[in-house]
């Protein structure tokens, strides 16, 4: 069956540009999570959507980062005015019933490189 799909798989952009990363969760999954994985910082939580509730944005590193989830399905993570330290792999995950103790299904990530 279809898993979590992320696009693009790789993105190279110049410092200062805006980027949008897309995540298609598994159909029927109510919760969606974004993480960042970088060499120096390991895996960091960014943002969590659960159904129609207000998202948990507590992991977003700065106001340059934002995310939305339209219609309870597809999500877009936007990074404005990119900086070199934003270079990382951005992972999206979804889970059937939400909550931090639910098993999460991960996409293969978007590898973002800022020149």
């Amino acid at each position: 069956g279809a898993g979590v799909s992320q696009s693009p798989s790789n993105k190279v952009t110049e410092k200062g540009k805006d980027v949008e990363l897309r995540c298609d969760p598994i159909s029927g999954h109510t919760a969606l999570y974004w993480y960042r994985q970088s060499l120096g910082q390991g895996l960091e939580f960014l943002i969590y959507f659960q159904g129609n509730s207000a998202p948990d944005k507590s992991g977003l590193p700065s106001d340059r980062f934002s995310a939305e989830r339209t219609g309870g399905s597809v999500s877009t993570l936007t990074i404005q005015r990119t900086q070199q330290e934003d270079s990382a792999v951005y992972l999206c995950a979804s889970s059937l019933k939400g909550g931090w103790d639910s098993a999460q299904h991960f996409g293969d990530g978007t590898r973002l490189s800022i020149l």
Partner: protein
Amino acid sequence: AQSVTQLDSHVSVSEGTPVLLRCNYSSSYSPSLFWYVQHPNKGLQLLLKYTSAATLVKGINGFEAEFKKSETSFHLTKPSAHMSDAAEYFCVAAGNKLTFGGGTRVLVKP
């Protein structure tokens, strides 16, 4: 505060020999605990999950983990390593958020 420590950043084993990946957690309550595996250029895949129903948890691909509250440990084992087990493994605790260990990279020698 919740924390997860994976005691080995790298583990090297020969094919067919046992694998042991060590994980200790710190939490003010009993969290749910997970092991995930990540192959190169892939996302994380769930191996197994502990939720207090049983202290010995069996996962996919022959892996299992034992929860020991007295030692605050959740070590992952496999009796016989396969070449396809070469990957990075993450121990994860779930409380009011997910806390990831630093990862253990496993090398399997033929």
